[in-house]
C-alpha cells in the first residue's frame, strides 16, 4: 500500500492505541444505546450492511465515526469495504489532493471529488471518503469554509467531521455555529463532535446541548459531554426550565435530559417522570 494518507508520524504504540479506541466504537457490545456514534449514520441510512470484499466479519453495518477515528484507521476501514472501481477512484482522488493541496481557482480538482464522493463510493461511505480527501488536501480553515458553504448538507456534515483532524485552533468555529443554526439533525449531530467540545464557548455549547434535546438528537452525539456538563450550574438551570416547560404543556421529558441534568447537577430532582426511550425531545421545529 503506497497510500500517502497514512499518519506516518504517529508512533506505533500511539497508533495502536487510537486504533483500538476506534475499533471499540465498532463493537456493538460497547455501544450504549444502539445508536451511539455519529459518523456511521451515513447518508444511506444507519443500518445498511456494507459488503466486505475481504470477507471481514467485523460488524459491517457500523462505519467508524469519521470525527473520532484517526484518518489512517478510517482509510483502512474504507478501502476494505469499497468495491474495486470505488477503491481506485478513492486512491486517485487522494493522490490528486495530496499532489495539489489547498484551493485553486473557482473549484479545485479535489473539491470536485468531494462533490461526487456519494455516487462513487456509495452514500454510506461518502462521509469517510470526504473526510479523507479533505485530509489529503490538507484543507485549512479557509478551504474548509469554502467546501462547507458551497456544499450540500452531506458535504457540510463531512467538513464538520473533518474539523478535529485538520484545525487546531478556534478559527473554524463559525462553521459549527452555522450548523447549529440549522434544523437538520444530521448537521446538528455532526456539529457537536470533538471540535465543538474543544472550542465552543460555554454559552453556545449549552445551547447546542439544549438544541439536541429539543430536536431529538441523542446526547451520545455530544463529544466530552461528561467533562463539559459536570458541575455546570447554568446548564442545569436551563435543563430544569426546559423540563418544567414540557411538563407544563403535558409533554414527556426525554430521558436524555435527565441524564445531562444529573451530570450537571447530581442533586437535581427530576420534576416529572421520564419519557419512554425513543420519545422525541421535541418535534424538530424551531422557528
Amino acid at each position, binding site marked *: 500500500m503506497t497510500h500517502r494518507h497514512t499518519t506516518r508520524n504517529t508512533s506505533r504504540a500511539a497508533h495502536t492505541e487510537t486504533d483500538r479506541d476506534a475499533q471499540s466504537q465498532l463493537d456493538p457490545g460497547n455501544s450504549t444505546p444502539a445508536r451511539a456514534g455519529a459518523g456511521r449514520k451515513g447518508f444511506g441510512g444507519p443500518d445498511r450492511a456494507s459488503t466486505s470484499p475481504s470477507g471481514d466479519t467485523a460488524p459491517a453495518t457500523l462505519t467508524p465515526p469519521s470525527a473520532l477515528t484517526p484518518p489512517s484507521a478510517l482509510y483502512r476501514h474504507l478501502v476494505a469495504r469499497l468495491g474495486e472501481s470505488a477503491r481506485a477512484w478513492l486512491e486517485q482522488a487522494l493522490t490528486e489532493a495530496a499532489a495539489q493541496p489547498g484551493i485553486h481557482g473557482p473549484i479545485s480538482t479535489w473539491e470536485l471529488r468531494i462533490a461526487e464522493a456519494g455516487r462513487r463510493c456509495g452514500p454510506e461511505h461518502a462521509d469517510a471518503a470526504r473526510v479523507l480527501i479533505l485530509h489529503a488536501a490538507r484543507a485549512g480553515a479557509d478551504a474548509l469554509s469554502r467546501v462547507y458553504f458551497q456544499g450540500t448538507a452531506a458535504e457540510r456534515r463531512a467538513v464538520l467531521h473533518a474539523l478535529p483532524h485538520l484545525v487546531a485552533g478556534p478559527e473554524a468555529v463559525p462553521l459549527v455555529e452555522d450548523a447549529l443554526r440549522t434544523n437538520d439533525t*444530521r448537521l446538528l449531530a455532526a456539529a457537536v463532535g470533538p471540535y465543538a467540545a474543544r472550542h465552543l464557548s460555554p454559552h453556545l455549547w449549552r445551547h447546542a446541548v439544549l438544541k439536541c434535546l429539543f430536536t431529538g438528537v441523542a446526547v451520545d452525539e455530544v463529544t466530552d459531554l461528561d467533562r463539559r456538563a459536570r458541575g455546570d450550574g447554568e446548564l442545569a438551570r436551563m435543563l430544569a426550565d426546559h423540563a418544567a416547560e414540557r411538563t407544563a404543556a403535558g409533554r414527556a421529558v426525554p430521558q436524555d435530559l435527565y441524564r445531562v441534568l444529573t451530570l450537571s447537577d447530581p442533586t437535581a430532582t427530576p420534576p416529572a417522570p421520564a419519557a419512554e426511550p425513543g420519545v422525541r425531545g421535541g418535534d424538530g421545529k424551531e422557528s
Partner: protein
Amino acid sequence: MRIFDPHIHMTSRTTDDYAAMHAAGVRAVVEPSFWLGQPRTSPATFFDYFDSLLGWEPFRAAQYGIAHHCTLALNPKEANDPRCAPVLDELPRYLVKDQVVAVGEIGYDSMTAAEDTALAAQLQLAADHGLPALVHTPHRDKLAGLRRTLDVVHESALSPDRVLVDHLNETTVKEAKDSGCWLGFSVYPDTKMDEARMVAILRAYGPEQVLVNSAADWGRSDPLKTRRVADLMLAEGFGEDEVDRVLWQNPVAFYGLSGRLNLDVPGTDATHEGNSILRGGA
C-alpha cells in the same frame, strides 16, 4: 403502489403535504429549480435556493420516507433578467453534486433571444456534466414553443433520448413523441392536464417514455395528482404493471441516466430512535 413524482416544487409545499404524499404511495420526488413567483434580482438568491434544494429540502423529505433529488438551472423566465444571468457561470459547481439528476427547468417562456442563449448554454452544460435535461415547454404559444424547443435540442450536443420535454398536452404530444424525447405531463388544475385527459393520452400514445407529474407549487395545485392518475388508470382498465411503469419505472429510467439516482431514503435518525415513526416505517 409506489409513486415517483418527477416534477414537484416541494419548497412551496407544507410538511403536511409530505405526510399525505407518503400515505398516497409517493416514495421519490425530483424538485426542479424554477421561478418562485416573486422575480429574483441577484444571483445570490439563486444560490441560497439551490443550497436549499441540496440541503434542507432532502432532509425534510427524508423525514417522511421520501427520496429527494433536484434539477438545477437558470429558469427561462428569469433568464431574461440580465441581473440573474451570472447564475449560468456558477452552475458548473452545482451540477457536480450527488443529488443533481438533470439540468432543469430550462426552455422557453416568451421565446426571447436571452432564452435562446440560456437554453442552448444549459443543454451544453448538461452534455458536459453527463446529465439529462428537463425542458419546460411554454404555456403561451405552446406548439410553436415546442417546435422551437425541439429545434434547439436537435442542434445541441444532447441526444433527444436524454431530454424530457414537459407540460405536454393534446396539441404537442405527437410531435414531442416523434422527436424521440421523453414525454412529461403535468396534471395541474385549471392550466395543464387533468386525470381523465391524461388517461386518454396514455390510451392513445401508450406508456412508453411517459412521465406524469403534479408540478405542484405555490399555485392552485395538488401534490397527490400522481396518485389520482394512477387510480383512474386502474379504474379505466390499465394493469398495475402499466401504472408502475408510468409512475415509477419511467422516471427512474429517465433520471437514472444521470447515474446519480439513489432511491434509498437517507436516514435522518442519526440521532434518534423515534424517527422511524416519522419516516412512516418505510
